[in-house]
């Protein structure tokens, strides 16, 4: 046992237990309390908040929408981000640092500001609709916000840089000589990509995908601003339960469900990564 090492770790661990782990765990008993409208948390124990999660059609629809968004955003960022990640990982151009800066800049820029920018672009009288109207492509504004399209665009924008950076790191770790060898042995660039680069970058693809999926289904700000109060996802529903309806038991049950999904995905990816390492 190393006493000094433990001493150095203690403050951080205590803080995370008191201000993170314990409060999250304490939501579980709350989620088993009945909700009394107008009063809040009632006495006694009940499973009704969890029953509601799997029977209420509205909640089920919001849950399915959240998961659907998670998968779609993950797929779009993966496909759109891979080529740029490849360029960043492999280019010897002097422009590389600035390419990285251009990708990182939106990542560091405030989420609310970026979502606000998308409102200005996607609203009924936003830049996209006005441009299409002026060009005569459409006769009336098309709905780009308060629906799946708006959330998909906004969330893809937010999480694309995450995906690109994870993929670029993974591709960077593949020795370029392997691709050169494949070329020397007669494979064309497409075959080299499909049989060498792509399989070797699988850990990055897995890591980036899990990260983007988990962050997408947890996102609050962008879905709220681009979806409004009516087009809900799980996070915005939890927000409303706590802030608008003051239904803490119901909100706690939803928070537990969201946490369970996130932890399951992370556990699943660790298992996959472990298998990959054993085989690889």
């Amino acid at each position: 046992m190393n006493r000094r090492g433990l001493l150095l770790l203690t403050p951080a661990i205590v803080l995370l237990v008191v201000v993170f782990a314990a409060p999250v765990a304490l939501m579980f008993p709350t989620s088993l309390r009945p909700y009394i409208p107008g009063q809040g948390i009632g006495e006694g124990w009940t499973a009704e908040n969890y029953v509601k999660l799997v029977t209420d059609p509205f909640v089920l629809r919001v849950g399915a929408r959240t998961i659907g968004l998670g998968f779609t955003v993950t797929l779009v960022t993966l496909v759109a981000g891979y080529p740029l990640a490849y360029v960043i990982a492999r280019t010897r151009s002097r422009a590389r640092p600035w390419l990285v800066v251009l990708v990182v800049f939106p990542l560091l820029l405030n989420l609310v500001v970026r979502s606000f920018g998308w409102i200005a672009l996607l609203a009924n009288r936003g830049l996209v609709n006005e441009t299409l109207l002026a060009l005569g492509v459409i006769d009336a504004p098309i709905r780009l916000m308060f629906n799946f399209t708006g959330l998909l665009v906004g969330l893809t924008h937010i999480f694309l840089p995450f995906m690109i950076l994870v993929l670029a790191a993974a591709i960077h770790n593949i020795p370029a000589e392997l691709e050169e060898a494949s070329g020397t042995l007669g494979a064309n660039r497409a075959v080299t990509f499909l049989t060498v680069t792509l399989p070797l970058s699988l850990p990055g693809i897995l890591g980036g995908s899990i990260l983007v999926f988990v962050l997408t289904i947890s996102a609050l700000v962008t879905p709220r601003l681009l979806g409004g109060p009516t087009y809900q996802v799980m996070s915005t529903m939890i927000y409303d339960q706590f802030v608008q309806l003051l239904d803490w038991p119901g909100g706690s049950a939803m928070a537990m469900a969201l946490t369970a999904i996130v932890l399951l995905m992370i556990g699943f990816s660790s298992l996959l990564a472990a298998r990959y390492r054993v085989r690889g």
Partner: protein
Amino acid sequence: MSVARVTGRLYLALLLAFLLAPVVVVVLASLSTTSYLTVPPKGLTLRWFGEVLRNPEFLDAIATSLVLAAAATAGSLVLGTAAAYALVRRAVPGAAGVSAFLMAPLVFPGVVIGVALLQFYTQVGIAGSFAGLAAAHVVITVPYVVRAVMASLAGVDGSIEEAARVLGASPLTAFFTVTLPLVRPGLVSGGLFSFIISFDNVPVSIFLLNVRQTTLPVKIFTMVEYGVDPSVAAVSTLLIIATGLGLVLAERWTGFHKFV
């Protein structure tokens, strides 16, 4: 140029345009003379920037955000560096589990941390306190410091510190005069990320603020929820300029693209 090359260039240009489009739009909207939001701007004025800088609500929110981010960064640097040092240099039992626990807030839904702390702080009677808010921000920023300092420490030869000890330095002196200066890149990038993450946070802050105190992103968030005007675009533009300047300076000083 071949077709493939042109397609490649076009794809790069489109992707970068997509990444930067909302930023450009916000800046343009802040310059309009109209009292409603419109892009491209009708006429050009800096009037909205004046309104922001004269509005005490915005100034208070900016001050709160800066103090909060500074407090969270200071706390995270102290707790995170101590923890990272213990994890890399001391044989602590269960180091892998401990570091996974310290990293957990990175992937944990912010909204869940927010509502959990809202309930917990209400129960123990510190709801709406600045200390509670700052503690929550240390929780969400400490993983960045732990990760950056651990990476820096792994690249520093431990025998340098042992040499200092052999030459008679106390463990503390050896740490502060030898190890700490060597891990400065980790401290800088961890601290920078902590500051930005704290300054930008909405999902945790929004549940923990009291009625009289708000942070800048939460203020913008609530304003955007109830309709927008060019002053929101102006304050957003100020944030864009600050972020851009910070990024260029960070790249010049630390060359952070090397860490990516």
